[in-house]
């Protein structure tokens, strides 16, 4: 539900930023952020997912379909649902560069960003989760 902003009385939508720092080396910690993101969207919360450190491996086209942990839906299925609902995917540029990941290998709809972009998202969000 929208809530009223405290300063100017405007209507503010809720926004959640989720920072993902784990990759295929920890499938459960890689999957849970997508679970939380899609559940938030289903509750009418705007979501931004940001991938840093080893989390950027998850944004490789060939990797995203491979990560699956028991008793959770596959990341590929959750990612598709997330994108259908207009979710944003931000990827740490230096993290991609240091791992020698080619930009053309990243999933469609993802966007390379710098720290300033993430700070802008985090400071304008109502909540931030770090995985």
């Amino acid at each position: 539900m929208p809530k009223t902003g405290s300063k100017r009385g405007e209507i503010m939508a809720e926004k959640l930023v989720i920072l993902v720092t784990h990759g295929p080396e920890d499938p459960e910690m890689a999957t849970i952020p997508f679970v939380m993101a899609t559940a938030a969207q289903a509750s009418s919360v705007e979501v931004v997912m940001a991938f840093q450190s080893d989390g950027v491996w998850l944004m490789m086209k060939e990797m995203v379909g491979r990560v699956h942990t028991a008793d959770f839906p596959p990341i590929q299925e959750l990612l598709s649902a997330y994108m259908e609902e207009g979710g944003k995917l931000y990827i740490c540029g230096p993290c991609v560069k240091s791992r020698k990941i080619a930009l053309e290998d990243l999933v469609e709809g993802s966007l390379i960003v710098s720290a300033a972009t993430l700070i802008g998202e985090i400071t304008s969000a109502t909540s931030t989760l770090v995985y």
Partner: protein
Amino acid sequence: MAYEPNEVLDCSGMSCPMPILKTKKAVDKLEPGQILKMIATDPGSKPDMEAWSKKTGHKLLEYQQDGDKHIFFIEKV
């Protein structure tokens, strides 16, 4: 009270968060006042649906349990 659903959604066998995602999509297609019957086997579905309805404002009219099946009647607001 027995409710006559306009749509039935069977989420049996689905794990978190799929029942919530499917429910949201199904409710989006309803007209206000129409009722969705949702069936889930995920053991967390009861608190999930209570939290979801509180958050979205859609009415959780009734909850039933039949063995491992959790059955929800939800009215779109």
